[in-house]
């Protein structure tokens, strides 16, 4: 049987005898599903086996924490300003460090966040990046507001994403 081109549509009158009586075609279809039954499965058995995303994955947004334990964020408020879902709240304060400003309060409401990554894109300090974390279950609305305690992640754990941003952003 010759392969049909995608543009040409075949009608009943174009079918040959064996295609018209339908049984050989059914057997072909059955053979296909039977072969498929023994092929490797694609299912990932989630709680035991977890999906490990690449650097391009946009998980929950986190704040980058430098090796000395201080966050990179200078509390400019651009992320809060650009956030289309109004999920970010930043309160700035002064500090003795070189960067002069730091966020005294930084909250992301994960019920509002739409994982668009605008905050990361607009950040001048590479201080807020999208992590690989996709497990964010909570049982009440208060728990959904992530403060600095949950947002600060050491820079070492975010190398994949930072590398990706430096290459493609």
């Amino acid at each position, binding site marked *: 049987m010759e392969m049909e081109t995608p543009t040409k549509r075949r009608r009943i009158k174009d079918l040959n005898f064996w295609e018209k009586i339908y049984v050989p075609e059914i057997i072909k*279809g*059955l053979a296909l*599903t039977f072969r*498929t*039954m*023994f*092929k490797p499965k*694609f*299912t990932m*058995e989630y709680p035991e086996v977890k999906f490990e995303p690449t650097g391009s994955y946009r998980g929950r947004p986190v704040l980058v924490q430098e090796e000395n334990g201080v966050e990179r964020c200078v509390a400019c408020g651009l992320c809060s300003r650009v956030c289309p879902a109004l999920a970010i709240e930043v309160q700035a304060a002064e500090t003795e460090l070189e960067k002069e400003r730091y966020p005294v309060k930084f909250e992301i409401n994960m019920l509002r966040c739409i994982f668009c990554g605008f905050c990361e894109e607009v950040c001048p300090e590479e201080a807020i990046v999208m992590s690989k974390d996709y497990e964010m279950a909570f049982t009440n609305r208060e728990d959904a507001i992530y403060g600095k305690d949950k947002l600060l992640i050491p820079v070492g754990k975010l190398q994949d994403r930072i590398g990706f941003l430096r290459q493609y952003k």
Partner: protein
Amino acid sequence: MSILEIVIIALIKVAVVVGTMLVTVAYLVYFERKVSAWAQNRIGPNRVGWHGALQPFADLFKLVLKEDIVPDNADRKIHALAPVIALLVALSTYAVIPFGPDLQIGDYNISLIVADVNIGVLFILALTSLGVYALTLAGWSSGSKYSLLGGIRSSAQMISYEVSMGFSVAGVLLLSESLRPVAIVESQSGWMWNAIVQPIGFITFLVSAFAETNRLPFDLPEAEPELVGGFHTEYSSMKFAGFFLAEYANMIMASAFIATLYLGGWQIPYIEKLGLSPILETLLCFGGFLLKMAALLFFFLWVRWSLPRFRYDQLMNLGWKVMFPLSLINIIWVAVLIMIFGM
């Protein structure tokens, strides 16, 4: 044997058949989900019990706990009656299916059939046609347009396919000269299986059996994309479970019936030449019958996950313009066989 012994043996047989039936139905649902998963490169249920082996019981438990909803417009009595009819019909047909040759235990000669009646085939055909009432009544009594459409479709479909089914069976009856299932099985000794002697009849009967059990590619009464759930749209909880169990029980029934009529029933070709002890031979035959049934059941599942649903007019075309003439041709073929070879 005294009357008491006969009654006790009959009751034991009924209990064993119904019990194994229900367990098989449960595991058939499980295997349906497994086969569908395998055909789609998935794993399937594997959380409850060993490889998901307790899944059917978890499903049943869930259904029992669900709220039983009856729509305002429904005819309450008939709405409740329909699943009962479906289950009754599905479970009672097993009475006349022979599962194996006679079993000799001590002084007792036990036939592996609940009721060895002379009109067994007629009994099965009559009861399976009664099954259409369950679907039609369910559709009509629900007071919902989708249910009604599903019910109408089921009646039209089952009536159309019953014709070709009846004519296919006629071919078998011509050869066996009896309506007794045991006699039909015995007439297919050696390799004289009806599937080999009359292949056209086998195919028409197989296709009609698919249509009778409302399995894909003929599951128009419940066609999900267009009719929500068809006749069982308005059913929930145990009433839904009734229809669900009846569908799978019907499938097992159809496999047993096909194995009896066309695949030699419990007969294993030339097993008597091996010179085994009678008990072992009986058990082997019984196992052979179960194997044939299992193969047919797998075929049912396999087809469901391979073929798309027919359109309604295509279904009717196939039923009246293809299956009906083919089953008539089969009768002529069998008649010619009898005339020429005197079978």
